[in-house]
């Protein structure tokens, strides 16, 4: 059985394409708790993060943080020469910064997935995509989680 050949280290040794205008270094990104930054660094290393090609769709205001729709799509031709290898989603204020990581490949045809996740509080969510040329692309979304009135105690 073949698996999708995509590890972070493979990519880190690859080219670091520099699009200066859209370049975003983590140091200059908006302030986030250290755990979120560490989790992102664990994936991208020292590579720069570019904005623009990742679309992260989350409702801006959710009535219950237990089940929040998440939709990530990366603008990519998804060919053997140019495709998305992995997509990672992180959060800022849950107990753990990782939400989900997926492995794709040119075989996907379209670099998009959806799921539903938990948000413990109003916070920022970050998606990072790793492309076959070794570049990393990102998008952020701010989500307001409203406070539930009638919660049931855990028995």
């Amino acid at each position, binding site marked *: 059985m073949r698996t999708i050949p995509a590890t972070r280290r493979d990519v880190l040794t690859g080219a670091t394409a520099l699009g200066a205008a859209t370049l975003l270094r983590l140091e200059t990104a908006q302030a986030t708790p250290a755990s979120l930054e560490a989790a992102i660094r664990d994936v991208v290393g020292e590579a720069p993060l570019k904005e623009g090609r990742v679309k992260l769709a989350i409702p801006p205001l959710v009535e219950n943080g237990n089940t929040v*729709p998440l939709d990530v799509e990366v603008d990519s031709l998804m060919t053997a020469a140019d495709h998305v290898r992995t997509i990672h989603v992180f959060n800022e204020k849950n107990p753990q910064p990782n939400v989900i990581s997926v492995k794709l490949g040119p075989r996907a045809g379209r670099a998009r997935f959806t799921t539903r996740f938990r948000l413990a509080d109003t916070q920022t969510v970050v998606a990072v995509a790793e492309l076959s040329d070794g570049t990393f692309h990102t998008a952020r979304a701010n989500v307001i989680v409203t406070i539930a009135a009638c919660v*049931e105690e855990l028995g």
Partner: protein
Amino acid sequence: MRSIDIVLRCVSTSGFVLMLVLLDSLSATTDTRRSTYDDMSRDIRAMQDDDMANPASLWVNDGAALWSQPAGAAQMSCADCHGDAATSMKGVAARYPVFDAARGKPVGLEARINHCRKTRQQAPAFAPESRDLLALTAFVGRQSRGLPITTGDDPRLAPFVEAGRMIFERRQGQLNLSCAICHDHNAGKRLASALIPQAHPTGYPIYRLEWQSLGSLARRLRNCMAGMRAAPYATGSDEIVALELFLMARARGMATETPAVRP
């Protein structure tokens, strides 16, 4: 319910003619009843509308499997008596609780399923709120989706509907609240940031995001009572069934949404 007068002014070629039109308050244009569905976010509505995305489908599918699975000493399945649920169960959940002549009082759908289990299948009753009971209830309820609720049509239910109304309006618990204080007098406002619904149980059993699971109307009512700091009535008790009956009867004519998704 109050009737309201609506004045329509019509223009004719010969001059102004005033026409008074009396509209019945029960007509669709003046029905102010709302399902919580109407006030949910687009995302949660989408989750309910698409069977593939609705987590309650996991229970509905289990219920479909249970429907045709022989059980108990009798080794009979629901289907052995009731056949294809798509036909035989159409509209059934939409009329529950119904009047049970043998017991002289109303009976909810869960109790009816368990009655069948004990007497026909000769199997032990499902525990309240158990996965199998919720699954069968959701599967039976799914067959009424989109159909109008008809609960309370039977005149023998009238005194029980009234008993449910009295419980609904009675202050109880340490907070000295009644159901009606929130769900009649303050419906549409917010408690914390949650919308207070009108209490029309159109989609039970529901997948409640708060629960991260499917749950019955009884669970929701008991949950509410705990919030009022009142001692919750037991599931299946006369009081809970009367409340369920009253709430379903006042949702009469509204569309069944089972299995609904709620925040």
